[in-house]
């Protein structure tokens, strides 16, 4: 639901990612943007240009943090320095919630810098939920976990991905960052109905949504974030909005990034579906 404990009871609308090619435009032109999403790891630094830009952005805009390397699903314990830097950034941005992925990506101190799918087992769900709770307790901010795109599945899995996401979020009592594009990509790669996924997650836990573009190859789809949002994903987004309400939505465009206006215009297309849902179910 739009304002809920998992997004700090906020009612954010449509946001876009804060990306280097757009810095100059944003700081000079000061376009009207409801909120920006930043990649936490890009700003967990000690000084310099990244923080100079961030502080200038924070003077005018609302910012929400999205991470890519906390690895809730890794067997490794948390990197304490990572958590300390993350908390420092949380205090700087005053982000109303923080998101990262339901994945693993490091082992024995070595990092893949990828968002690796997890085996969907009850033991893994319990372990992951425990780490999410520990992170939330340390960071003192609501956490939303994002479903990832995946290209492989494990023999060891005991349930579907949406059952696993539901199990983890219930055990951790955390929010969900529902990435509609990722559901579509995974559904095509693993031959499941994406609407089964959308219909069978705890909708009250969705604190934020992602939409994005992807790339089709002969035998699989890759989550490339370098295209406009495709029609099947928009259709899924419309369905998701009916289930969870007009929740804070972020367009991800991370490669072959076009002009700020092109990215922002693409993001604002989401309004068509949000307005339609509001018209059907006025508050």
């Amino acid at each position: 639901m739009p304002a809920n404990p998992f997004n700090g009871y906020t009612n954010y609308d449509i946001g876009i990612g804060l990306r280097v090619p757009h810095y100059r435009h944003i700081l000079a032109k000061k376009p009207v943007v409801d909120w920006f999403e930043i990649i936490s790891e890009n700003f967990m630094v000690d000084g310099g240009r990244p923080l100079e830009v961030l502080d200038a952005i924070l003077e005018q805009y609302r910012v929400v943090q999205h991470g890519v390397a906390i690895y809730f699903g890794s067997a490794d314990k948390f990197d304490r320095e990572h958590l300390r830097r993350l908390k420092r950034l949380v205090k700087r941005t005053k982000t109303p919630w923080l998101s990262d992925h339901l994945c693993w990506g490091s082992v024995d101190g070595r990092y893949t810098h990828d968002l690796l799918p997890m085996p969907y087992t009850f033991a893994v769900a319990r372990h992951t939920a425990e780490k999410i709770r520990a992170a939330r307790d340390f960071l003192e901010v609501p956490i939303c976990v994002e479903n990832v795109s995946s290209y492989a599945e494990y023999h060891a899995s005991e349930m579907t991905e949406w059952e696993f996401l539901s199990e983890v979020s219930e055990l951790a009592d955390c929010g969900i960052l529902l990435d509609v594009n990722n559901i579509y990509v995974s559904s095509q790669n693993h031959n499941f109905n994406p609407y089964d996924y959308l219909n069978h997650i705890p909708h009250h836990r969705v604190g934020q949504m992602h939409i994005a573009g992807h790339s089709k190859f002969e035998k699989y789809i890759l989550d490339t974030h370098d295209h406009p949002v495709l029609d099947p994903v928009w259709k899924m987004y419309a369905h998701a909005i009916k289930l969870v309400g007009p929740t804070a939505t972020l367009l991800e465009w991370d490669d072959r990034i076009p002009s700020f206006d092109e990215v922002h215009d693409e993001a604002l297309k989401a309004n068509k579906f949000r307005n339609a849902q509001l018209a059907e179910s006025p508050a």
Partner: protein
Amino acid sequence: MASTLFRPLTPQWGMQKRWTDGAAMADVASEFIKPNDRLSSFERLEIYNRQYWFRVLDCLYDDYRGLRAVVGERKFLKLARAYLARYPSDSYTLRDLGNRLEQFLREEPDWSAPHSELALDMARFEWAQVVAFDGPAKAPITHDDILDTPASKLKLGLQPYLGLLELN
């Protein structure tokens, strides 16, 4: 699974067909990855193996333009692959990917021969740039700070993000 991802690709940018013990990689992959109607277990795992290497090589490619110029593109690729095979990423941020490149070039100068000394200097310089870009900074001194402080108590220092390099 992680060990398979860190394993260097073949010269044709594919996953190696044999595991470290000589077993067929297709058999190894099928032990934990399910195939689907289009891709084998091997092919599904290969997507991640390739993604890892493309991502980290791309990062070094961007951060070490000078080193690339010194050793040449082809040699840089071989050097980068060897470095990352020896020293895979040990940080949550790709910013730190080159944190042991100087050490590697000193340990194995053949990868940058015949310009090993210049390559080492360039790598050190380019790493110093990475550090300076987002290193800690103190508030710069203003005119008023200088005017308001007795000369005997005035202490000037360099910003902590600066580094002094002695290059050959």
